């Protein structure tokens, strides 16, 4: 008997705008000691599938129309809310994407860990404490006994995810559902967490459902893979077979969209320097200690015309701050940013205005970087009109041209941002950035928030625009595969310092620094 056997599960959402089938006749099984990965893009129903069977979707508007989910011979879908509650967090545990929002910030870690033991297992407080500390140790939290009384904000992202895992495992569940558990983490931390999940799955003989959009991660971890699209299972197979011989066209498309390969460096002539950054240092005030810490520490580099320069590092490394300091969105403390023979740092904001036209930024989150109350037309027309590049009369034509440029449907001109998908929104943001025909574009993680197939489209668009408009791009990213496929040269940033700066080819062939080697080896590989 399978640990969990889901048959013909269908979940619909009944909203004012009609009925959406989020999960459409989905069947699968998970065995003990097996990791089943569910992959798909956002909105494919991979999370809703799992939430449905645990009774965690809002009902209404959600409604489970049919199907069964047999967990050790009992149908989860037929259970009452109180029966389900006993199973959730006891026999079936979950871990989520963002450990910070899943932990109660007002309770110490220990308090939150022992709670299920006392609640589900009738442990005494002191027994529970011993067990919790044991498990924290097992999950790789060093000095567990001391950290038992720490609060969530005192842990780093990776440590918090370890705490979440410890919390999930504390009742010795039989099934663990992990919903994108490493998506918010840095690549080196991700590698550690994946290793931990695999180890614990083995030692506790867990069944694991691993929900992810990241095919490379899935390939490293899962025994079997279920590919979902628009609520349906399009393909399911053992991992090896699925990756070596994908059957369904959608799976093939997904695999093809994973960034691979390496950009062939252009011949760049040394005299064509667009941007010369010298000894850039930016500090921020740390509110806790009252001291200033260096987010960017004495960074010097030159950007050549028409190149795509990658800027990689983990979160908190200061890579975004470098981009923002160049554009003077944050004030740098010292150094020089020479653009077209002019040092930008001493300029006032007013003096910057004509230069801003020539350097633009693309932001990570297309949901946050567009004004929700401006239509596409307003958003794209604003820079044109403001910098006097169009008049009231001809602005509409120019906006339409821009929309063509970034692959937006001309008919969408009067729509608001929320009416677009993430990829389309990023196209609007790109359109806004190239509207003033800038020479330099700083792209801050422009594809990190996007699905893999959309990511590929946006990257293709960026490459095309760089060629077409002779742009130079500083591409900030934590995703090394993307950087490898896109960039001519790469800078590696750690703790605000530039530690390695090489051509892409050279960096992958012979990384000089230990940190770079760690980064490169932590990337899950698909081929």
């Amino acid at each position, binding site marked *: 008997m399978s640990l969990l056997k889901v048959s013909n599960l269908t979940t619909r959402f009944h909203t004012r705008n009609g009925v959406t089938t989020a999960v459409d006749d989905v069947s699968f099984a998970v065995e003990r000691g097996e990791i089943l990965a569910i992959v798909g893009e956002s909105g494919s129903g991979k999370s809703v599938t799992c939430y449905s069977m645990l009774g965690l979707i809002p009902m209404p508007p959600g409604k489970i129309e049919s199907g069964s989910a047999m967990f050790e011979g009992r149908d989860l879908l037929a259970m009452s809310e109180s029966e389900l509650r006993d199973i959730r967090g006891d026999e079936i545990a979950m871990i989520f994407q963002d450990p910070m929002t899943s932990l109660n910030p007002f309770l110490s870690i220990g308090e939150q860990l022992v709670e299920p033991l006392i609640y589900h297992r009738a442990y005494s407080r002191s027994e529970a404490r011993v067990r919790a500390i044991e498990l924290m140790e097992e999950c790789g939290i060093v000095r567990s006994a001391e950290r038992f009384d720490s609060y969530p904000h005192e842990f780093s992202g990776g440590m918090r995810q370890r705490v979440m895992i410890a919390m999930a495992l504390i009742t010795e569940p039989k099934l663990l559902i992990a919903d994108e558990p490493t998506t918010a983490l840095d690549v080196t931390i991700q590698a550690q967490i994946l290793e931990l999940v695999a180890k614990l799955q083995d030692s506790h003989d867990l069944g694991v459902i691993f929900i992810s959009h990241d095919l490379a991660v899935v390939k490293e971890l899962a025994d079997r893979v279920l590919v979902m699209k628009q609520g349906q299972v399009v393909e399911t197979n053992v991992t090896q077979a699925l990756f070596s011989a994908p059957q369904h066209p959608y799976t093939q498309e997904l695999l093809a969209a994973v960034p691979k390969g390496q950009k062939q460096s252009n011949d760049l002539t040394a005299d064509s320097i667009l941007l010369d950054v010298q000894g850039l240092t930016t500090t921020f005030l740390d509110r806790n200690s009252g001291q200033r810490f260096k987010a960017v520490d004495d960074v010097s580099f030159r950007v050549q015309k028409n190149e795509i320069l990658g800027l990689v590092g983990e979160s908190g490394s200061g890579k975004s701050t470098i981009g*923002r300091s160049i554009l003077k969105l944050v004030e740098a403390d010292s150094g020089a940013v020479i653009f077209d023979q002019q040092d930008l740092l001493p300029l006032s904001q007013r003096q910057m205005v004509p230069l*801003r036209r020539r350097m633009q930024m693309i*932001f990570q989150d297309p949901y*946050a*970087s567009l004004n929700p109350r*401006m239509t596409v037309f*307003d958003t794209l027309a604003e820079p044109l009109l403001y910098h006097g590049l169009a008049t009231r009369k001809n602005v509409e034509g120019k906006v339409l041209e821009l929309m063509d440029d970034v692959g937006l449907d001309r008919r969408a001109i009067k729509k608001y941002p929320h009416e677009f998908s993430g990829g389309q929104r990023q196209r609007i943001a790109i359109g806004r950035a190239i509207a003033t025909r800038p020479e330099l574009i700083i792209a801050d993680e422009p594809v990190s928030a996007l699905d893999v197939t959309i990511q590929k489209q946006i990257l293709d668009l960026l490459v095309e625009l760089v060629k077409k408009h002779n742009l130079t791009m500083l591409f900030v990213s934590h995703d090394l595969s993307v950087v490898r496929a896109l960039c001519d040269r790469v800078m590696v940033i750690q703790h605000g310092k530039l530690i390695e700066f090489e051509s892409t080819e050279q960096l992958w062939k012979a990384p000089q620094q230990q940190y770079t080697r760690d980064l490169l080896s932590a990337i899950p590989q698909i081929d």
Partner: protein
Amino acid sequence: MSQAALMEAEQGTSLWADAWVRLKKNKLAVFGMSVVGFFVVVAILTPWLAPYAYEAQDLELGATPPSAAHWLGTDIFGRDLLTRIMYGGRVSLAVGIIATSVALVIGVAWGTVAGYVGGRTDAVMMRIVDALYALPFIIFIILLMVVFGRSMLLLFLAIGAVEWLTMARIVRGQVLTIRSQEFIEAARSMGLSTPHIMLRHVVPNSLGPIIVYATLTVPQVMLLEAFLSFLGLGIQPPQSSWGLLISYGAETMEDYPWLLIFPGLALSITLFALNFMGDGLRDALDPKASKD
């Protein structure tokens, strides 16, 4: 500058134009607007429409319940209640609308600048607000009356000048969350000037709570006016306002309930209508709220 201002005005049309289209589709909001509109028109035309003069007394008649001659009855001096409510509406609506507008303009401008510019400017501006909060309202009004003499306009300004404080705080809070969003950074990296960013990107996105609070301010200032009038600082009998009618009506509630009921109805209907209108406006100004 003039060119930029012109551009701004022209650019700014599409959100409001779209909002107007959406507002017209919201039946409740249209109903609210019609009611408010009707009351405003009646208030303006009262001198021609009113069946009696507002100070006309008929002491022999005294307080009578509604009748054919006096549709809403008369008060203890035999004055026609309908007439007094109509004249009272002129004062109350004017106070409500003008004082709220004053509060709105000052509060939004103050709160936006404080919240957006931040730092020391913010600290100084908000301490001024705190200081004014601490000032006893009545003493403030009495001082104004003493210095400038009693006038209707002053009353409006005085109430507005007090009500903007809360508005400024609400707006500032809104602006603080909006300021940290990426689209503001995008606007800055585009080289847009600070006033332009405030006008085009910050204020439109903080309108929701502003509108709701504004609709709540209207009844508040109407009652405040009654309170001031009661103290002898606002308008004087035989002039009237809804607030005054209600407070006198409340005194004689047991004997002549209609003296409380009808002015009370006038006030509540207006408030309901304003709330419908405010909610509709808030939804209409949020492109995400209604999907048509």
